[in-house]
């Protein structure tokens, strides 16, 4: 059921996400400011100062302490949120693993920014890709609307009894975080209704049922099984995420899927890309389609868990797939997304040609022409040109 008349706001990505945080009004937020996430924390501070939220806001002295406080808070039984970027996320990573292993449904916004060094404040995905093995659910978002919607949808996903894992939502630093775009928000009541009550799980603040969390596993050896349990929860999340997307569609008319297909029906050459570059890519697909080139696009949303079968299905009849990574994995066969897509194809016994394009590192612009060049290359490969095994760097100087 689509919403009736909703006023459209003109708001930055960070503004959209902080609005969602205000409407969610979690029990606790513990966060530390960092570019380009900063105004998420600033806006939330203002909500606290204005008395607009009931949340306890812990203004920690570092991101490591932000995530540590989130662990204490969620462990105590409180609905808990935080936000970060780049170096801040890197500082958190040690305890991000702990949060996931404790199965604490903490919700974090990670505004994508390049990792140092050299220090660079602009967008790429090296920060969140650093945590791809940390046990957190990872959802990538194209624009402010998606980031807002994802924030609201995070709670029923992360808190679901078959999942109970922390979740991070990404969107591009500056390109989305700081740029004003349209937002159709929900009402606070709709948000509250959608997220429901926080679940009741074993918690520190239960005097009658005290619990020991984070025990030492050095002698009896259940670490391995604990890790298997985390992976089972990841597996379970695939259905829970889609069910939540479907329920959200009923409420808003906005359709979300693990991967978002654009003009894929008879596509022969396809690009897979995450976040804001997908918008540019759609315009390029339209242009190429007008020329009769059978171009298609897959926009990644869910990266953890990675929906292997869905990628294999979507790419089953495709001749060449170009995977665009906004992060690199030095010394690896390709960027992180490329390796996931390649593995998905292999696991399902498919052998479409796949080429890796690395783009946008440290905020390097990706223009429509750059993406068009990517498709032209894929088209040439589809017509018989050799598919390169090595990465192709997009819009890099001297390449």
């Amino acid at each position, binding site marked *: 059921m689509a919403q009736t008349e909703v006023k459209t706001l003109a708001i930055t990505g960070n503004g959209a996400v902080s609005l969602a945080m205000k409407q969610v009004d979690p*029990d*606790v937020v*513990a966060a530390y400011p960092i570019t380009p996430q900063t105004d998420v924390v600033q806006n939330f501070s203002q909500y606290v100062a204005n008395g607009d939220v*009931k*949340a*306890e*806001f*812990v*203004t*920690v*002295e*570092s991101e*490591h*302490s*932000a995530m*540590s*406080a*989130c*662990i*204490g*808070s*969620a*462990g*105590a*039984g*409180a609905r*808990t949120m935080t936000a970060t970027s780049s170096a801040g996320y890197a500082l958190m990573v*040690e*305890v991000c693993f*702990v949060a996931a292993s*404790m199965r604490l449904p903490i919700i974090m916004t990670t505004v994508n920014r390049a990792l140092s060094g050299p220090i660079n404040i602009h967008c790429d995905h090296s920060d969140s890709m650093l945590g791809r093995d940390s046990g957190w659910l990872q959802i990538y978002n194209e624009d402010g609307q998606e980031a807002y919607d994802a924030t609201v949808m995070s709670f029923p996903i992360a808190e679901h009894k078959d999942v109970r894992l922390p979740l991070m939502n990404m969107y591009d630093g500056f390109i989305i975080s700081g740029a004003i775009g349209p937002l159709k928000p929900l009402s606070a009541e709709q948000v509250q209704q959608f997220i429901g009550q926080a679940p009741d799980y074993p*918690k*520190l*603040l*239960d*005097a009658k049922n*005290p*619990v*020991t*969390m*984070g*025990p*030492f*596993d*050095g*002698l*009896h050896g*259940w670490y391995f099984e604990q890790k298997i349990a985390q992976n089972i929860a990841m597996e379970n999340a695939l259905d829970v995420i889609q069910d939540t997307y479907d329920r959200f569609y009923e409420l808003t008319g906005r359709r979300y899927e693990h991967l978002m297909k654009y003009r894929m029906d008879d596509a022969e050459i396809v690009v897979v890309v995450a976040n804001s570059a997908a918008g540019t890519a759609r315009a390029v697909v339209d242009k190429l389609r007008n020329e009769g080139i059978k171009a298609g696009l897959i926009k990644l949303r869910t990266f953890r868990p990675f929906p292997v079968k869905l990628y294999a299905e979507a790419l089953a009849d495709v001749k060449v797939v170009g995977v665009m990574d906004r992060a690199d994995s030095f010394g690896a066969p390709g960027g992180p997304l490329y390796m996931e897509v390649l593995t998905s194809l292999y696991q399902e016994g498919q052998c479409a040609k796949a080429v890796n394009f690395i783009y946008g590192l440290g905020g390097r612009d990706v223009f429509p022409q750059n993406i068009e060049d990517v498709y032209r290359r894929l088209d040439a490969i589809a017509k018989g040109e050799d598919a390169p095994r090595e990465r192709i760097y997009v819009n890099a100087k001297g390449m």
Partner: protein
Amino acid sequence: MATQEIKKQSPKVYIDRPDHLSGGHRLCAGCGAPVILRQVLMGAGDSPVVISNATGCVEVSTTIYPYTAWKDSYIHSAFENAAATISGVEAALISLKKQGKVTEDFKLLSVAGDGGSYDIGLQAISGALERYHDIVILCYDNGAYMNTGFQRSAATPKGAWTTTSPVGKVRPGKNQQRKNLTEIAIAHNIPYVAQASPHNFRDLIYKAEKAFAAKGPAFLNVLSPCPRGWRSKESDSIQLAEAMVKSNYWPLFEVENGVYKINYDPKKRKGAVADWMKQQGRFRHLFTPENEWIVEETQEMTDYQWERLKAMEEATARFGTQEAAEAQEPAE
């Protein structure tokens, strides 16, 4: 006032208080930590407690999965972040109490050794103290990273042998004097800071009770004998702690709303640092003609610190006003 008046009770009163830590934990014979924890938790009385513990001896010895020695709720997340973790527990407690979802008066305790307090956990402790959470932060100071096999910390005494300040042909153990963490905590202008020792259990339990009763953060630094790392006899631990206090090396004092009070003042020093250094194998190499200067220097430093402490007691006596204490408290 953020602090409350607490009476030092007779041992009979303390012994009837519930034990928060059960037997069967695997800390070493002669270890100061479980003694200290029992005494500190006696200060919490009947209240339920949430303990946030840094990685270390206490953590690995009390929570060997699937067992736990803790009768209260307990959380360990990493080495450097016990104080940050308890900050989050406190925020959750405030929020859930406001919503009526939690009704009990929980006491919140962060526990770390000197590694997790003086060194890797210092930032998290400083942040938590500055944010004025209603928590107690306890450091059990045994003077090195004992859990991982005796590596030096900022709390290791000068000249002490550790595995990362070993004794060799050109180095007589640790080169540097200790950091004064208690003074660092005091500099946060929090309601209550105290230094204590398990040999004087009435003093320690009283201080813990005072710390838990304070509205806002409190910091306890407690000397914790370690037979393995100190290379001392298990049966000597409590006596060694006493000797260290009597030599003025580890003064028993408290700072309440900025006012220093020495709790044990021997007037004339009751022993020298050499007395207890001789009983600890980690200092054995110092009792040679070429290294004796380190013992002498440690005595000089101890005497100087003691004189300074007495001067602080005298100087701050007139500053304990209600107005000064309230000015330090955060806005609601």
